[in-house]
């Protein structure tokens, strides 16, 4: 066995990313690794390349267990990884980028520029790319950068090549070329770990397929022993044990309607619309378009049936739209500010007259939401940075509720919050819907999407694939749509 990872577990800040996952690769095989968002694929790869240290489990290369794994050690063992986002030095030439990865010797060695260029040319030829080695990496297109990464892997004579979504930005022709390169690796007896969301590619190139779910290996099968449907089933197949507090509330008029290229969608008052899709399918971008962060070039947005022009968050707020972003540390909470000021930040106009903040009105506003959302804090004057993740999320939510919006966009509202807060946030969402709010919820968690939504819109590759009703939606269907299978 070329590579054997056994019983790998890893937790980050108390959250289980891997729970006894296993993967093995034989010489001369392409082994596909598939799974939903957050199934633990990336973490498993990072453990194998030494970028992350596992809490438990072993990694064996050629039958011997690796101790004190490290990225440099992985390199010397012939493990090379190509990530979705190429990591090149933008101001250095292609030849230099390749040389930096491959050349050995001291920092004071004399550089043989001719040999560098010649080698870069040869490696790029073998990768099937015609790129001038003298070009700065910053001038390369995404596929070209991908090709340089592959040339680096060829040059390193990788025995184990790991590719994480290598085709995400490639055209069909380039994918063809890439597959030929993978074939040549296979022919030389190297092992390839191939991660992809594109099942058709997985079935075209892989010899075996391993499915990962919730940090565990669900199963490893020969390609000809499973069907796509079975693979999708294995990816989803968890029981929806969590109980969601969703209940039927009266549905009203259309509050928000989108007529954008590739996306036509509406949300009614009282409705929770779940927006599903893989990471990178364009869900957050859509939310940002609605909120004026990246105004649409064409198409229109209607609020309560009227076309509105939203060019900035300030205009979106005026239109009665609220947005709780995904990354609350970066975009949501102002850590150094007291809870009170965090809550009132987007509705300062409402608690002030002629620019003068009415301290009492502000405290009252914040106080009412702290009570309503049951934000647990020492005092309303405590800095938001001192709160737990769940309570920070509630503060972010409170800020937008304070603006009295008609439409609320929630991007991954329960990501990284504890179970208790999660349920409270879900309950709150239903209460808000009952009060007539239109809610657009982006979530990568299928159970949450299925459990909380009245309707479910599925995005793939920047456009809307389908909108399903609560009754007709199943995890299998959503995933198939998100993977572009239907």
């Amino acid at each position: 066995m070329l590579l054997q990872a056994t019983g790998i577990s890893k937790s980050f800040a108390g959250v289980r990313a891997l729970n006894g996952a296993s993967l093995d690769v034989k010489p001369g095989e392409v082994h596909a690794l598939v799974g939903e968002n957050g199934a633990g694929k990336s973490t498993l790869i990072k453990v194998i390349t030494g970028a992350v240290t596992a809490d438990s489990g072993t990694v064996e290369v050629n039958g011997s267990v690796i101790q004190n794994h490290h990225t440099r050690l992985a390199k010397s063992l012939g493990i090379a990884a190509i990530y979705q986002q190429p990591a090149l030095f933008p101001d250095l030439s292609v030849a230099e980028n390749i040389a930096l990865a491959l050349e050995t010797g001291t920092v004071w060695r004399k550089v043989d520029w001719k040999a560098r260029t010649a080698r870069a040319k040869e490696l790029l030829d073998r990768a099937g790319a015609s790129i001038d080695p003298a070009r700065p990496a910053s001038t390369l297109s995404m596929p070209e950068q991908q090709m340089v990464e592959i040339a680096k892997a060829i040059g390193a004579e990788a025995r184990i090549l790991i590719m994480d979504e290598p085709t995400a930005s490639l055209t069909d022709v380039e994918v063809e070329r890439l597959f030929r390169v993978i074939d040549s690796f296979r022919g030389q007896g190297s092992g390839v770990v191939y991660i992809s969301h594109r099942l058709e590619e997985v079935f075209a190139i892989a010899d075996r397929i391993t499915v990962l779910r919730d940090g565990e290996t669900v199963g490893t099968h020969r390609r000809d022993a499973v069907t796509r449907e079975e693979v999708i089933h294995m990816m989803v197949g968890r029981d929806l044990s969590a109980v969601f507090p969703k209940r039927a509330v009266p549905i009203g008029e259309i509050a928000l309607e989108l007529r954008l290229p590739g996306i036509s969608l509406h949300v009614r008052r009282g409705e929770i619309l779940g927006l599903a899709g893989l990471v990178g399918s364009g869900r957050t971008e859509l939310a940002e378009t609605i909120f004026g962060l990246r105004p649409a070039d064409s198409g229109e947005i209607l609020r309560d049936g009227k076309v509105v022009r939203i060019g900035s968050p300030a205009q979106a707020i005026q239109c009665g739209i609220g947005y709780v972003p995904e990354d609350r540390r970066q975009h949501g909470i102002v850590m150094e500010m007291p809870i009170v000021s965090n809550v009132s930040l987007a509705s300062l106009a409402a608690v002030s007259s002629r620019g003068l903040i009415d301290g009492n009105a502000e405290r009252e506003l914040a106080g009412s939401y702290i009570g309503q959302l049951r934000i647990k804090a020492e005092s309303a004057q405590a800095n938001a940075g001192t709160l737990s993740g769940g309570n920070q999320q509630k503060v972010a939510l409170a800020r937008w509720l304070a603006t009295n919006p008609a439409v609320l966009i929630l991007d991954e509202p329960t990501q990284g919050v504890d179970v208790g807060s999660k349920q409270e946030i879900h309950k709150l969402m239903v209460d808000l819907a009952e009060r007539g709010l239109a809610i657009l919820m982006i979530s990568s968690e299928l159970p949450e999407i299925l459990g909380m939504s009245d309707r479910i819109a599925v995005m793939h590759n920047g456009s809307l694939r389908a909108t399903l009703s609560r009754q007709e939606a199943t995890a299998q269907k959503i995933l198939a749509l998100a993977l572009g299978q239907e």
Partner: protein
Amino acid sequence: MRSGYRREISVALAIGALWIALALLAPGFFTLSNQRDVLMANMPVLITALGMTLIVLTGQIDISVGSVFAICGVTAGLLAKSGLPLIAVIVATVLVGSALGAINGALVAYLQIPSIVVTLASMVALRDGLRWVTEGAWVENLPRTFQWFGLTLRGSEVVTIGVAALLFAGLAWGLRHLAAGRAVYAAGSNEEAAHLAGIDRARVTLWVFAIAGALTGCAALLNAARFNQVPSNSGLGMEMSVIAAVVVGGTSIRGGRGTVAGTLLGVILLGAIGTALTFLGVSAYWEKAIQGGIILAAVSAEAWPMRAQTWGGRLGRSHT
């Protein structure tokens, strides 16, 4: 917020310690005339530092204040000599200051050039532009109506201190109670979140620079009226003492945290140290070195908990 004023308190304690040391070792420091000298010499620094506090709170910096200070001083002198009434001189000088600040601010806000680069360029350009126009000559023989604002020496000092006190109180109040003040803190501590909350970051930056420019103009005016002439090289190296006072006073150089009260304490501490050295018989050459040491200490005190935080944050985030 319980720990919110920790920095201000520690600066106040440092001032107290310095005063006790001086009371024991150099009682001459506390004579009325010396205290008056220290006070008056530091008024321009204080008023300019108030504006700098705003800029630093938004996460920016302005190193061109010394040059703006010189231009405003010379402008005030020339206008006064041309026979304009005092009120017109005052208005014009403050306007020139805020216009220069607004230019810096517009370049930072709308072209998104880092403020350190913009103001480095304007520091040099304005300074040399002034030298070229004045050919290094001082503005001399200021009219009697301008010097001391036509009052007695004591009267003009009272006016100067009164103006500084008003500006200080106004800014302290505004930062606390105005929506605009809240926007300054929000934009400084989390630009993205502020943007999402509907705050126009560019406008905040532009205004903050314009207000700081006006304050610099005001400081230059009060300074020019103290003497019979305006040197064309005034304000040289002033950015150092101004930024030092702001940073020592506990305003975070990354923006978002700090108060004008802290800046006042910073000015008092650094101003006292400068004079104290003379009284303690230490060579004046040490002054800058000691000031530098204090700035380093202040910034390190801020950086330590920050480092710990980012490490923690990174660990927590790495899985997403």
